């Protein structure tokens, strides 16, 4: 699909509004997490991209290709805004999260590490994804239902997003943000993807949001 066609689907102004909404939403999510585990989350400028759904898995694989292995929390959401969120961390993050969530307690070899890592990712994922997607929905006057989070620990960085997530011939919007925890050397990506099904509603919701300020 050519650039002209994709530009028709989401304009520069719509991209700006969505970027600002993602900025506000991830700020809320970071504040919730920081309150829960006494960290400071360094935020970056979010990025919005429109692409063919079929190219989505490759795009995300490329974004995270500096990671050898990854741990992923995936959560689907349904409302007028419909899609999936993928929280991606590099190798070794699980043990750091266990320590953070445990208030600095040391992790021993005898501890059930895998289960603790799963639980830590699930907890952090629930907060970051729930607060971020929830705030986007709130700002756009929508109500969202979530699937339970699916956690995958230490897998190869390829194939984070299933190829059949959205219809093959449709388009998708990716909202991406990179974050770091100031302490503990933890960083990761949050990708929120929405399918073409939501586009018509999304465009009108974005302008409705902006119209409050005109």
């Amino acid at each position: 699909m050519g650039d002209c066609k994709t530009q028709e689907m989401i304009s520069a102004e719509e991209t700006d509004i969505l970027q600002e909404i993602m900025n506000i939403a991830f700020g809320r999510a970071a504040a919730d997490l920081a309150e829960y585990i006494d960290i400071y989350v360094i935020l970056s400028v979010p990025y919005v991209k429109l692409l063919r759904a079929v190219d989505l898995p490759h795009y995300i694989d490329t974004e995270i290709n500096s990671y050898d292995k990854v741990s992923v929390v995936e959560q689907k959401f349904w409302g007028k805004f419909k899609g999936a969120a993928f929280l991606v961390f590099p190798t070794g993050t699980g043990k750091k999260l266990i320590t953070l969530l445990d208030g600095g307690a040391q992790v021993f070899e005898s501890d059930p590490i895998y289960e603790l890592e799963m639980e830590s990712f699930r907890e952090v994922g629930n907060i970051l994804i729930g607060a971020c997607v929830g705030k986007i929905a709130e700002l756009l006057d929508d109500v969202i239902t979530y699937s339970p989070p699916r956690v995958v620990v230490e897998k190869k960085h390829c194939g984070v997003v299933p190829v059949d997530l959205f219809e093959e011939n449709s388009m998708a919007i990716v909202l991406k943000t990179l974050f770091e925890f100031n302490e503990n050397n933890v960083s990761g990506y949050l990708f929120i993807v929405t399918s073409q099904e939501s586009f018509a509603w999304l465009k009108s919701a974005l302008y409705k949001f902006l119209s409050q300020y005109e």
Partner: protein
Amino acid sequence: MIKKILIVDDSPVSVKIMKSCIPKDKGYEFSEANNGEMGVEKYKEFRPDVTFMDLTMPVMNGFDAMQAIIKYDENALVVIVTADIQIKAMARAHELGAFAVVKKPPAKETIAAVLEQANKKLAERC
């Protein structure tokens, strides 16, 4: 009295929202910058009475830009307007000399109140 306002934010939508929250009947003169570094340059050129500054920006973030502005002009009134609502971020902004910290998206009433406080501060200096 406030005459000139500088808005430093990388998001055109955010600038539009900020401007819509500022009373239109006061005849303020505006200038804008889309990153912290440009914000510092604009400050020196434009000499605003009040600066609204985002935190998360490319090239130079709002913390560094505010520090540079206050180093240049210790009387600068810099209002941080940010989506980063972590307690530590807000505390750091105050420590570095922010006149006020406002959460995004801003409300008209909040901005009007901040401008009123800024006017009082400026009046005290006269």
